[in-house]
């Protein structure tokens, strides 16, 4: 009997080892969990800017101001594709937001504050390769007062007069970190944007465009669908004015805008959206503008929603 004791010990050791092995971290546990980032790339123009993304550079007069309220819904703004299996995961499948902004204008200058407030951000959790993605679950109940990455900006009209064929301007914004990365509403980093702006009117037609740089310190490049450092911004819009009811006019036209990471300049990390917009504008000293936009991704990538609906109201004027 005694001769069996060593064997029993060996068995115990083996069992213990098996038990330990059975409790060792599973491959899933070892997977990396992306921390999230600010998915929304719908960088609105300043309150009173006319278009949704572009800026009409109609800045003039003595002291003036603008208030804007914008609300929108985006479908599938973050769908990640596993480069190996081609499996797709909509980490952020639905996003609704409310955005309130205020601007002060004086002569050719504008300063503004923009407060984005997520109403709902939801998606699907899952695993893609070595990454375990956790979907956000944001709603008014769980986060009743979130302000996500608010912006303070200044714009100036450098050349051209309101209503002229060509107006050139420049703008800068600082984006302050606010909200949680895990909710996909914030980079948790300070960011900045510098844009060159152009706009003009020719008869019944108007246009606007922008080129800029989004200085973005966050770089999770190895993680699929994640930020890849600073980005190049681009966009253009054009529309036609139609006479509306007395004291009103209607402007309709598309806006196309997007961004591409400098790391993979127009080769990989690029997102582009097209938005068909219409806006009803009051003509007078104190103006009301009601805007509606419906859009679709041209190149669906991080933040460029599969489709999007946006509604906005602006009140603006000057002395």
């Amino acid at each position: 009997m005694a001769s069996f004791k060593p064997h029993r010990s060996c068995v115990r050791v083996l069992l213990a080892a098996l038990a330990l092995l059975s409790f060792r971290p599973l491959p899933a546990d070892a997977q990396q969990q992306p921390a999230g980032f600010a998915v929304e790339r719908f960088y609105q123009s300043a309150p009173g800017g006319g278009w949704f993304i572009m800026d009409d550079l109609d800045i003039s007069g003595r002291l003036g101001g603008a208030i804007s309220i914008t609300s929108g819904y985006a479908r599938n703004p973050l769908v990640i594709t596993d480069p190996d299996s081609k499996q797709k995961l909509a980490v952020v499948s639905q996003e609704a937001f409310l955005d309130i902004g205020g601007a002060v204008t004086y002569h050719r200058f504008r300063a503004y504050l923009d407060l984005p407030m997520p109403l709902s951000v939801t998606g699907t959790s899952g695993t893609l390769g070595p990454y375990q993605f956790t979907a956000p679950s944001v709603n008014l109940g769980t986060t009743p007062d979130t302000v996500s990455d608010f912006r303070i900006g200044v714009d100036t009209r450098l050349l051209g007069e309101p209503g002229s064929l060509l107006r050139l301007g420049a703008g800068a914004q600082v984006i302050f970190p606010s909200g949680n990365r895990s909710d996909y509403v914030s980079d948790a980093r300070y960011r900045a944007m510098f844009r060159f702006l152009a706009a003009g009117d020719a008869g019944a037609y108007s246009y606007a465009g922008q080129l800029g740089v989004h200085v973005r310190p966050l770089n999770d490049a190895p993680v699929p669908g994640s930020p890849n450092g600073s980005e190049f911004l681009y966009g253009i819009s054009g529309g036609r004015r139609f006479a509306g009811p007395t004291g009103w006019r209607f402007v309709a036209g598309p806006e196309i805008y997007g961004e591409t990471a400098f790391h993979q300049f127009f080769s990989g990390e690029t997102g582009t959206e097209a938005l068909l917009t219409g806006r009803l504008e009051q003509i007078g000293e104190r103006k009301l503008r009601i805007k509606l936009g419906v859009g679709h991704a041209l190149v669906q990538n991080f933040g460029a929603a599969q489709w999007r609906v946006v509604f906005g109201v602006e009140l603006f004027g000057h002395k």
Partner: protein
Amino acid sequence: MHFRSLILAVTRYVYRRERRAAVSDGYGCDGSDRSLGRANLVSLFNRARSVMLVLTSCLLASSLASAQNGTPAPRPEGEDSLMQVLTDKGLHDIENESWNAYGQFTYISSWKPSFDAPYTNLNGSINSLLPTAERSFTGTATLYLGLRLWKGAEAYLVPELISEQPFSQLRGLGGAIQNFELQKGGASVPQVYRSRLFLKQTIGLGGKSDVEESGPLQLGTHYDSRRLVFVAGNFTILDFFDTNAFDIDPRQGFLSLGFMTYAAYDFASDARGYSYGGIGEFHWDDWAVRYGRITPPKQPNQLPVDFRLLKYYGDQVEVEHKHTIHEQEGMIRVLGYRNRENMGRFSDAIAAFDANPQENATTCTGFNYGSQNAGAPDLCWARKPNIKEGIGAFAEQYIGHDIGVFARGMYSDGKTEVYAYTSTDRSATVGVLAKGSVWSRSKDLTGIGGNLGWISNIHAKYLGMGGVDGFIGDGAITAGSERSLDMFYSANLGKVYWLTGDYQHITNPGFNAARGPVNVFTVRVHGEF
């Protein structure tokens, strides 16, 4: 818990009153200060002395108590502000505004020396105020934006930033929390949030034309003295109910939380002190009655909000009357509240533990505060839809041109846990506030007040068994009234800055006569624009 929120409540009433007095005397605001003659000063001091004696008697008798609270108040005419500067340049009409923008920043630093405590967090309970020396701070910055949408309609948006570090993780005190800005769940990393977003619609019904001066959360305008007011959106209930005594901005006045409002007023709100809901007000000259229904949090003292307003809610009704006694203005208010929330009754928690000791503070898997006391009952086992009720009264009275006294008292049923504000079940406060015009510093403010709080017998029994609620629970208790004395002097520097020194003496912290007393020294820097 929210504590901070409430803030604004500036000197609306004081300044409004000043302005009315100035107009009736034929002086402007500056002139009103000069209108105080020597005879008036003597009279004022005599009255002040009498009032102080009365107040001291009240404090010694451990009776009354009160709290302040409120909403941002209009800035007085002539005050340096962006709106005033624009008005002076002809770019803005401050008396009939279509928009306005105000801002503030405040930094409050408190220090608490060590104090005597025979036990701390006994048997694994977790809510003691630590007896070691501690430092606490809050830093806030707020932007108040107002816009007139159409006739009678005003919209307000208030983003705010806060950074904080409380004493003892905000544990161990009832209504005597030393800094009203503290929020439960706050962090030293600055957090930005939207504190208010609401719409106010006023329907005039005639009467006199009352001037409402421009200020945070108030467009400069005129209202009928008889009017209906409806509010909907996101706000703190203290923007409208039990507004601060003399409308003193808490960021200029008392620092203790007990002066924000009734410490026993467990108004429904999230962890920051804000709610969603609606309010209706009916003003008829000197009378006003208001009703509000607001959202509670999903779990006690937490941030997520329960929007099921038909199932869980906080209701409150307040009746207010303004009066004049010997040409000195005053106000009396009566407020009642009734909350229906998913909260625990102390008696149910005790009964559950007595029936089965396994249902203790360490075994409940539902929402709990993390107590490690296995020999204590826990409210976690008792949470279900329950009712909490209370009724209180408030009075404020000017006794001189720039000096006033106030008192508050509230009785809540004390059967259920704290769900949003403080652990206090019954509270009383008295105080006196004076501006520095007597010593030629009209923008200075000083005050002294006492704040008392009690808990119900069943609440004390629950704590004595080692139970904890949202803020207190030492593991044992020698039940006593929590008392705090708060005195401060706020000196105006450079027109828009205030430097405040404050001292608080807290007796029986957490309603436990076995611990303390606690001394707290505070410095505050506040600026407005």
